[in-house]
């Protein structure tokens, strides 16, 4: 797949939604694609040096639960942290890579990571909070790459 290009826009910052951009980005790179991921809004969480990603069942009735928990109880303090740690445990047991590991594999494979400058400013994030090698740019820069991409996804 030499010469092919994959452009991804990553907009979500939860533990579950962190997987698709990094899985697809690293795999495409392994297949020979040139890959760029443009992180915007909550997707910027995925560029932080210290990722603190959580998963929640609120608003997501499809999330499998070991036992049924009423929605109001799911909103109680501590529930989100508990669900996150249960999810992480399950992932580890099943041999699913951590988000950190997949991100490192993307970096090693020269996957381009672009942070949306507008949302970095909007949320008062500092480049000091972000991993090294991130570029800061806007929509026009995304199209410079995506305009020639074979595949473009919005996640």
């Amino acid at each position, binding site marked *: *797949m030499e010469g092919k290009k994959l452009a991804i826009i990553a907009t979500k910052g939860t533990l579950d939604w962190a997987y698709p951009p990094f*899985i697809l980005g*690293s*795999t495409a790179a*392994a*297949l*020979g694609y040139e890959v760029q991921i443009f992180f915007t809004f909550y997707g910027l969480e995925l560029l932080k040096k210290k990722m603190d990603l959580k998963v929640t069942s609120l608003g997501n009735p499809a999330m499998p639960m070991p036992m049924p928990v009423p929605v109001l109880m799911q909103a109680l303090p501590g529930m989100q942290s508990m669900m996150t740690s249960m999810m992480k445990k399950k992932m580890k047991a*099943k*041999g*699913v*890579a951590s988000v950190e590991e997949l991100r490192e*594999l993307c970096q090693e494979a020269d996957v381009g990571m672009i942070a949306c400058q507008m949302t970095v400013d909007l949320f008062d994030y500092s480049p000091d909070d972000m991993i090294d090698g991130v570029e800061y740019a806007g929509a026009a820069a995304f199209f410079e790459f995506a305009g020639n991409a074979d595949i473009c996804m919005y996640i």
Partner: protein
Amino acid sequence: MADFDSELDASGLNCPLPILKAKKALQGLASGQVLKIIATDPGSVKDFDSFAKQTGNILLSSGEEGGKFIFFMRKA
């Protein structure tokens, strides 16, 4: 299919790790050398076939032995 130059045990790892680790292992080999890959992820059977088709590396064989999937791949 016993001859190989390097072996990668990806047992217990799930998608996409077996592919990513195999890609790395192949990078350390010379063209024509053979990598043996052991995996337990059932999805890896179709994935290694697709990986070979897209990268030009040759999947010499793909089989199952005692609940594990064994692949031999020759580097392009």
